[in-house]
């Protein structure tokens, strides 16, 4: 009995942590029907849910801010414009504080990151079962199948709990770091930065020994930037989502446990408002700092 409950619980969690993956199955192109099948698809597959929600949220962001930009006047701002200008001013201030080069792309990128990541994280506050159940119902699965936990419709609604999403952004930022490093310092300057620090010597033979050591150290530092950036956001959101799922499991454990779960969910959700904002902010600030470092010429 205990084992059965445990298995059901594991299944519930597993179900919530499996992406809706589109790729090549044994029967041709289609959606994976289990986590295992999704894993077998390998690299040539797409997590339709994370990418779809991510793009949808970006469209919401773009639409909202485009609307604000269209209505933007130099007169007295009202309502929506106030909010958007507040965001723009906040991001602009942060960029001006941390970024010392001259690049017109940094500030709009920071705004995109902040609002988009915030929106992606915000999906965490939607109760964990709502959207997956709706998706399963749309997919034509019966209520009995869904409530027994045997549904094969996967729907992971928080894009930032998918490492593909966070690492995809981090990879783009990594590309920008490389691009601007080379653009500002030149290839020689960039290579020099990677090989001539932190150890240097006047003796050319000693210097030659130092070069591989420096390269190893600096490469680790360089690669750690995008990985830590992407994995930090992923880790925080994944852990938060996991706790929401665990709390949601308590609702199946009777009235008392369910009520307790409700209180826990409320508390965690309120705390999570802080976390999602903070994570979006950290992602933005670190991006600005990394790019500022890429623009610094020694």
């Amino acid at each position: 009995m205990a084992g059965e409950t445990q298995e059901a619980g594991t299944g519930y969690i597993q179900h919530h942590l499996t992406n809706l993956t589109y790729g090549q199955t044994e029967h041709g192109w289609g959606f994976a029907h289990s986590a295992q099948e999704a894993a077998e698809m390998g690299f040539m597959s797409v997590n339709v849910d994370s990418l779809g929600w991510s793009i949808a949220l970006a469209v919401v962001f773009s639409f909202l801010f485009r609307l604000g930009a269209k209505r933007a006047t130099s007169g007295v701002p009202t309502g929506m414009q106030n909010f958007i200008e507040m965001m723009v001013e906040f991001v602009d201030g942060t960029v001006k504080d941390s970024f010392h080069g001259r690049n017109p792309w940094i500030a709009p990128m920071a705004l995109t990151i902040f609002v988009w990541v915030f929106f992606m994280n915000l999906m965490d506050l939607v109760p964990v079962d709502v959207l997956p159940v709706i998706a399963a119902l749309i997919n034509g699965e019966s209520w009995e199948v869904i409530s027994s936990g045997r549904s094969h419709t996967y729907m992971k609604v928080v894009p930032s709990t998918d490492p593909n999403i966070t690492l995809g952004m981090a990879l783009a930022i990594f590309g920008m770091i490389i691009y601007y490093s080379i653009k500002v310092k030149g290839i020689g300057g960039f290579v020099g930065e990677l090989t001539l620090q932190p150890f240097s010597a006047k003796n050319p033979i000693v210097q030659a020994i130092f070069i591989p050591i420096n390269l190893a150290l600096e490469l680790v530092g360089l690669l750690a930037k995008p990985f830590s950036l992407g994995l930090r956001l992923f880790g925080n959101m994944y852990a938060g989502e996991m706790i929401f799922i665990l709390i949601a499991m308590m609702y199946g454990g009777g009235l008392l446990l369910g009520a307790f779960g409700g209180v826990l969910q409320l508390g965690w959700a309120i705390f999570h408002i802080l976390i999602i904002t903070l994570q979006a902010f950290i992602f933005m600030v670190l991006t600005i700092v990394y790019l500022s470092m890429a623009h610094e010429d020694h």
Partner: protein
Amino acid sequence: MNINLTLFGQLISFLFFIWFCKKFVWTAIIHSMEERQKKIADGLDAADRAFRDLELAQEKATERLKDAKQEAAAIIEQANKRANQIVDEAKEQAKTEGDRLKVAAQAEIEQEMNRAKEELRESVATLALAGAEKILKANIDESTNRALVDDLAAQL
């Protein structure tokens, strides 16, 4: 939690939305905000200027008022002086005129007196002549002479 093409899907959409934000959102908002900033700065400047202008105008008005008062006082003083002068002149004139009239009257009176004296002298001479004549005619008769002289004396 498999790494797959989603990674590049997100990468590309990320770059696209950055481009969209820069092109259609950021520039317009920042532009309008800067414009407003400039407007506000201009407005404050104008207010400052207007305030200074007002102060200047007030100062000028006060000065004008002071000048006008001074001028009015000067005019009044001058007028007073002129009035006094006129009165003095009139007095002087009246006095000279009076003196002249008095002198003329005195002269006339003297003239009149002289004429009267002359007339009186002439009358006395005529009377004396007439008396002498009558005395001469009645010299013969004592009593007649007596009577004549008495008569003459009565006539005087």
